[in-house]
């Protein structure tokens, strides 16, 4: 069904730790993985699935590690990749950083986790908060507290334990919208969308029932309300805790939240958004002598708003040298290891326009290796504002002890995959 065995390899392909779940694939098969991977990479045919005979390797890379699942069946590939990423998530929560050293330093816990996360190729409990209740770093002593399976493990509510207590009951809601834009060299917007995410930091006692109200257009249409601005969400994805069938039937977002931080939901909005920071660039390359770059950035958002930590990253040829910059505001810096000029503007008010000029020398002997045409990318963050206009209308919190709890909401718009192609 899914994985026969899971391996964690270092960059050279040496097995750091592994777990054989089904015993139907020879564990030595993994030795073929790295040579094959390198061969594929050389041929430019890198692929997330590699096969050797009737053994298939599904792999992901994380920092200096490869996580590899083997199988000889028609496994559910999407489940395997999801699981591998879940492994990364769990290990990261346990060890802060997941890398070669943290695996070695914690091999006992890693074994325990591998044992608990998957059984015979079937993923089991993978919620790290719950796992931390009975798989602990110090090694569980058989004392009273640990001698029971947290009921959460098998409960319908498998993401929250009972008996949580806070003095002050609060929920912090972050609404974060990322703007993805792809602009062609001639300035036309090829594609744009908004990916929103609602994150919670829950500090609530007991088993609270929460209901989140958004200005969701479908909901308003269902309930026949017709006032104020509404937002049409193209696709919505929810955390395990949200009752999906309830949402499907009447668009109510109801749930018992996980304790602490979590991503409650994400959504995608397809409407055409005006790129919030518009870039015009002229890049002139004079072979064997110089490159001249002129970049104009314009804030296409409300005057009252301010974009913070704006970074405009402009690609330059890899053999460029002797940079010279001139900016109307902010700082420009050459980052040779990335072949970029990074122009930083700490605070960029809406409606304003700024300019940056850069000048590079080029060697007279040209680099004959063909270089790609990386786009200009932009990073920014605009607080107190969402492009889509989405709003949290209410957050109802009901717990049987009847405490009063306060929800706090914060809105941020930021750049996502924000690319502008250039002519050069």
């Amino acid at each position, binding site marked *: *069904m899914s994985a026969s065995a899971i391996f964690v390899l270092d960059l050279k392909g040496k*097995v750091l*730790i592994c777990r*054989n*779940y*089904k015993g*139907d694939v020879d564990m030595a098969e993994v030795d073929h993985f790295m040579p094959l991977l390198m061969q594929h990479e050389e041929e*430019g*045919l*890198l692929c*997330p*699935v590699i096969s050797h005979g009737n053994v298939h390797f599904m*792999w992901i890379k994380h920092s200096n590690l490869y996580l590899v699942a083997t199988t*000889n*069946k*028609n*496994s*559910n*590939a*999407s*489940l395997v*990749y*999801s699981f591998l*990423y879940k492994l990364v998530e769990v290990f990261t929560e346990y060890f802060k950083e997941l890398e070669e*050293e943290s695996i*070695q330093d914690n*091999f*006992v816990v890693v*074994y*325990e986790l591998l*044992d608990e996360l998957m*059984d*015979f190729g*079937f993923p*089991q409990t993978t*919620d790290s908060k719950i796992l931390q209740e009975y798989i602990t770093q110090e*090694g*569980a*002593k*058989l004392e009273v507290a640990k*001698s*029971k399976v947290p009921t959460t*493990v*098998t409960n319908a509510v*498998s993401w929250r334990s009972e008996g949580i207590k806070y003095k002050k009951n609060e929920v912090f809601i972050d609404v974060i919208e990322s703007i993805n834009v*792809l602009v*062609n*060299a001639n300035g036309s917007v*090829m*594609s744009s969308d908004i990916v929103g995410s609602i994150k919670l930091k829950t500090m609530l006692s007991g088993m609270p029932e929460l209901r989140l109200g958004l200005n969701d257009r479908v909901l308003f249409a269902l309930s026949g309300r017709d006032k104020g601005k509404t937002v049409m969400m193209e*696709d*919505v994805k929810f955390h*395990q805790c949200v009752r*999906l069938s309830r949402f*499907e039937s009447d668009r109510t977002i109801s749930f018992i939240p996980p304790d602490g931080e979590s*991503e409650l939901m994400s959504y*995608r909005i397809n409407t055409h958004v005006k790129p919030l920071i518009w870039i015009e660039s002229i890049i002139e390359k004079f072979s064997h002598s110089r490159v001249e770059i002129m970049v104009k950035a314009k804030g296409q958002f409300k005057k009252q708003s301010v974009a913070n930590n704006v970074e405009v990253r402009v690609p330059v040829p890899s053999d460029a040298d002797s940079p010279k910059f001139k900016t109307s505001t902010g700082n420009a810096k050459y980052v040779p290891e990335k072949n970029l000029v990074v122009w930083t503007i700490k605070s960029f008010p809406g409606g304003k326009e700024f300019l940056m000029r850069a000048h590079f020398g080029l060697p007279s002997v040209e680099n004959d290796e*063909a270089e*790609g045409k990386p786009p200009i990318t932009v990073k920014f963050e605009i607080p107190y504002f969402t492009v889509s206009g989405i709003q949290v209308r209410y957050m109802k919190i009901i717990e049987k002890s009847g405490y009063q709890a306060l929800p706090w909401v914060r809105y941020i718009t930021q750049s996502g995959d924000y*690319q502008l192609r250039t002519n050069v």
Partner: protein
Amino acid sequence: MTDSKYFTTTKKGEIFELKAELNSDKKEKKKEAVKKVIASMTVGKDVSALFPDVVNCMQTDNLELKKLVYLYLMNYAKSQPDMAIMAVNTFVKDCEDPNPLIRALAVRTMGCIRVDKITEYLCEPLRKCLKDEDPYVRKTAAVCVAKLHDINAQLVEDQGFLDTLKDLISDSNPMVVANAVAALSEIAESHPNSNLLDLNPQTINKLLTALNECTEWGQIFILDCLANYTPRDDRESQSICERVTPRLSHANSAVVLSAVKVLMKFMEMLPKDLDYYGTLLKKLAPPLVTLLSAEPELQYVALRNINLIVQRRPEILKHEMKVFFVKYNDPIYVKLEKLDIMIRLASQANIAQVLAELKEYATEVDVDFVRKAVRAIGRCAIKVEQSAERCVSTLLDLIQTKVNYVVQEAIVVIKDIFRKYPNKYESVIATLCENLDSLDEPEARAAMIWIVGEYAERIDNADELLESFLEGFHDESTQVQLQLLTAIVKLFLKKPTETQELVQQVLSLATQDSDNPDLRDRGYIYWRLLSTDPVAAKEVVLAEKPLISEETDLIEPTLLEELICHIGTLASVYHKPPSAFVEGSRGVQHKRLPGSAGSGESVESPDTGTAAAVASEAPPAVIPSQGDLLGDLLNLDLTPPTTTGPPPPSSGLQMGAMDLLGGGLDSLMGDESEPVITSRDRLGGDLGGSPAMGTGFGATPAAMPASFNAPVSSGLDDLFDLGGGVGMPMGAYSPPKTVWLPAMKGKGLEISGTFARRAGVIQIEMTLTNKAMSVMSDFAIQFNRNSFGLAPAGPLQVLTPLSPNQSIEVTLPLNTVGPVMKMDPLNNLQVAVKNNIDVFYFSCQYPISMLFVEDGKMERQVFLATWKDIPNENESQFQIKDCHLNSDAASNKLQGSNIFTIAKRTVDGQDMLYQSMKLTNGIWVLAELRVQAGNPNFTVSLKCRAPEVSQCVFQGYETVLKN
């Protein structure tokens, strides 16, 4: 303090030291020692010698220590089976521990100890754990049953664990249900025929309820299991879909894909005019698009699956072109897949945008990606006629970049554009010729040579150009050699006076100096043609070429259906059926979409129907992604000999050539019925070797001559099979269309056709092509009396007149109530077709298998009695040679054509299948098919009260099995 200290080793006698520590009295020291042992194990050192000492530590109340010892046991028990017994007692004891964590740990671990000897000791503890009060223990025990089954299936069955497992589907705890479902699915996979997952509306309801409550992984197990269920009717199908759609909003991509699988499968059963059907279609697009924001590996899986979904239901994503635009930082595997989908979605509405993007990609640096982008531009030109001009000019721009591989790729696709739109873009030939010297890849060289040959009359120095290639003839690849040969022959036919020497030269290079049989054979054919009958040669070589199709690399519809049932799995990533890459899955039934009996099913939905139909009836010319030698071989000689008569002796031909043609080629065709090469229509372009160019061939491989009365010999058949047989659909076999009435005999009307049985209805499917200069109308059809009373069930419906160069597909249902006359061969059918010009007669043979009716499955008892009752002299035995199927696959295949397996017996490794079928006129035929594993020769014994059909039925067997 970290665990890494355990990896440091001491110098002297490590094992010895560890042994001492393991036997220490101090708990803490013991634990440290076990950790060191595990550390050594982790780095690959053999610490199996410590087995007894480690097992001694098993009896502890420290959970962490216990886990480590268990881990050690799992790793080494297999190498020390005798000592593993020592552990049994502790397992049994731990399974009764008051702490559920320990009970579960014990039951989980003992299933992982794959030592046969100890399995039976584990049955009692497992039985208890399956009924444990704690759901954590029950869910672990459920998985343990699957583990035990893997080691000793018989034991699990004997102990009744399977029933207990089935009971767990009704457990109150959703996690237990999910694991029970997972375990049962796993077990069922290795026993395809067992009815383990006896899914019925009640169990389905339980699963759907658990679906709302279990973990994301449990949801996947349940959805994957649901996907194996076939709802009874459209209402049940709809109600399941309604309860599955909320899963599309789950954050986990794997849950979403498994839900998509269920929905894609079940919506097959929904009537297309249902409102809900439309709603469901609309609901599928957004989650599929969102999958593209997942991690790259998951994006890749999603894209491979979207590729399938787009082929099956193009309407779902037709407006979503933009999301497939390539981002600079996408990994290469994501880029290439996106490009594939962009081509599939390209339409008149979005072509401008697509082209702009493709042009952008073509100037990137990644060679594979750039090549594919250039190729994609060519595909767009072929697919969207309105864009052809823009595509050509884009390609010309790209050629101007002089980037070598871009130029070569562009030339390859321009050749296809010429094929598709003849006499339109030839003005660019001059530009192409400028780049002749830079071409170093065989495919590009072959394409260029084809262009020169094809347009020789417009290229003044065509002879010089071709001659320049000829110098290094023997260093060229076969593809180029074949192409060069054909091109020069074309040139000669167009400009005979100046090029005689050149053609002599190439013919002698091909026939005398080459040891490549394909090249030699083709050389001889040309030589003989040219010397015998130059007029005929012209007709053959310069004949009009068949159209090339718009869609490329379409997945064959039966395979597509199967892959849709495997959405999210490796099969869907590889685009291969599981049987192609999973060992031991040969007997496993191929999954089918519900309600799709035979490939005829897809007719209901017009959109997909056309796509499917194109492929199932051997597409007119799908451009193969890669050429192969096999293709070339087939291209050569598969055209129907339409006139017969001994080959006229040709004086100009050398003796060697005669020999080869007389003996060699004839025996290749496998028949004494004078296969002469005076055939017309497609040979022309097709003799041209480049596979992309010769796309006409793979198309109608089994061209069976109308006048061919004798049964076609098997040698010829085999060759044909190679052409059409790749991935032929299961289900009722319908041969590819063959030319029944060549245009020459039909005063310009060409009829090709085939027979099929779709959803119980026999059909004649014909393509009428007007190759004359005037419009044809008033079509009618009539059959002569025949063996099974086949007759048209209605008039031939050709509503609009057929204008010159137009083709029309007609499907005519047949009944079997017409007048009967025994024909020889039995399945011969004489047909008359009338139009406003004349009446034409031809005869054809239908596959007997289409007369096998759906209710041809005999009761076992009746079969036995009938078999005994039919006298032995009525039994006839036949051999089917070279059939590489196992008995299950054969049985499946035959079932598709209504040959039903009633029972199977295995004696001494030989499978005997007892089968029955019923003909439309009520004649029963009983068969015994013997299959010896590893032996490609099958024996079939047929018993029938009317023994004269046996020969014909046997042929039916052979064609069904081999196609």
